[in-house]
């Protein structure tokens, strides 16, 4: 019988929630990495037992953890005591160095700071880890300050795909309230050379040559908080989602506005429709219905909680514009949590499960595509990220 494994990153550790295909009773494992912020965990599609985790701390910086047994045990790649004779282990799994070589063109060294001045790029943390679709040892990392790194040796070492930061618009990128993070990485299953990424606050970008060169894909976005509302870059994109069987169609939750592109990001149009507010962070697509999408509307950029204290997921079965509120099993009074950008995921069981985590420490599941919801856990530390593995 199929199983699901939910990987939950929180402000004070990681948790792994496991269930069978019914998704009614759950086993909770954790906290792992107690006391550390776990920005993101994700399993390899090529080997579900391989999981990568981004572990960070204001005191001790960045750590990358890796599991090869589905999260039972963990290691810092290259950080162990066993070493080949005469060779010092690299211990570089947490070393993220921006490329400054002349061979990459003119690597940019500054971006726009909050006061409009230019500021040097400084590594802060890994926001998102995206394992390759085909190779368990290849994984991408989206980091703050925004850049994309890749490891091809199981996270022992990392190298920047500097064509993104060297694209030429870097001086116009700027940090959002949460920092200047590269938070979304989408690998196109139909085209290994194509990757989509998104940055707050720069926008979305696409490569069609495996990461060598990039172009901004923000046409159609309109951001009233920018001097040029339709600028090429500078938009605060919160998250982007894609159905793997329809990789040309993208859905975006922007700071304000829910957007859709039918041509791999070349042009976007707004599909906020009848949402009660089009501010929010998460967006995701049903595993079997590419036109069914989910968002969690949040009141505003200064009031990061649901409207009227009612936690409502909104579902559109028409790829946007027409939305319905999903409330059954979710708190409908006095609820003032937030749902952060990487904290929603879907499984691929026959009846698609939808999951999301809140800053209040709840992780909710709907085993029936959003019709009915129940908390799996409700007292974790604030949830930063949720990913789901569907296991045979």
């Amino acid at each position, binding site marked *: 019988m199929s199983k699901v494994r939910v990987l939950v990153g929180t402000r004070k550790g990681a948790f792994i929630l496991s269930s069978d295909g019914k998704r009614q009773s759950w086993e909770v494992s954790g906290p792992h990495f107690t006391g550390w912020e776990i920005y993101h965990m994700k399993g390899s599609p090529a080997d579900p037992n391989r999981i990568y985790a981004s572990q960070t701390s*204001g005191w*001790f*910086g960045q750590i990358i953890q890796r599991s090869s047994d589905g999260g039972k045990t963990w290691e810092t790649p290259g*950080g162990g005591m066993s070493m080949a004779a005469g060779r010092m282990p690299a211990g570089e799994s947490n070393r993220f160095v921006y490329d400054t070589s002349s061979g990459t063109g003119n690597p940019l060294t500054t971006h726009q700071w909050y006061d409009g001045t230019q500021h040097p790029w400084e590594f802060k943390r890994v926001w998102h880890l995206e394992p390759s679709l085909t190779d368990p040892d290849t994984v991408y990392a989206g980091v703050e300050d925004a850049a994309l790194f890749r490891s091809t040796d199981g996270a022992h070492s990392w190298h920047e795909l500097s064509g993104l930061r060297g694209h030429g618009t870097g001086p116009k990128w700027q940090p959002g309230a949460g920092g200047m993070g590269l938070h979304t990485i989408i690998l196109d299953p139909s085209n290994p050379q194509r990757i989509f990424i998104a940055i707050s606050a720069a926008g979305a970008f696409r490569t069609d040559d495996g990461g060598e060169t990039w172009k901004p894909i923000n046409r159609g976005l309109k951001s009233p908080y920018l001097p040029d509302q339709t600028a090429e870059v500078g938009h605060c994109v919160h998250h982007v989602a894609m159905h793997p069987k329809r990789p040309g169609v993208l859905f975006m939750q922007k700071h304000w506005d829910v957007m859709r592109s039918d041509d791999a990001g070349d042009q976007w149009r707004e599909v906020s429709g009848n949402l009660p507010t089009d501010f929010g962070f998460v967006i995701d697509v049903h595993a079997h219905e590419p036109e069914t999408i989910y968002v969690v509307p949040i009141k505003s950029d200064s009031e990061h909680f649901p409207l009227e204290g009612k936690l409502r997921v909104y579902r559109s079965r028409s790829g946007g514009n027409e939305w319905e509120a999903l409330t059954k099993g979710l708190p409908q009074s006095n609820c003032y949590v937030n749902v952060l950008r990487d904290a929603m995921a879907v499984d691929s069981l026959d009846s698609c499960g939808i999951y999301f985590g809140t800053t209040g420490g709840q992780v909710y599941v709907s085993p029936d595509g959003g019709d009915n919801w129940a908390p799996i856990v409700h007292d974790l530390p604030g949830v930063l990220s949720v990913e789901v593995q569907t296991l045979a």
Partner: protein
Amino acid sequence: MIRVELPQHLRTLARVNGDVQIEVEGRATIRSVLDALEAAYPALRGTIRDHDTLQRRAFLRFFVCAEDWSHESPDTPLPEEVCSGREPFMVIGAIAGG
């Protein structure tokens, strides 16, 4: 033999209990102690000082014989009490937050 006292989170990361004991060739300094520590426990690289600049991370402090050595030159020789193992070289997480 030099004893290094680590914050709990770094002990967990290095998978050690209690003080770490390391050997340093020649007269020990902050730099040589950290070099030896990181060589023995590679998982600690980047957590106490930056991989490349070797600058101490902002929220960590170094204490030696009840004194704050955080701003001493990394090449200042450590006192005999530390070199002999009578006193630990302490890496302390700053009290920060609220």
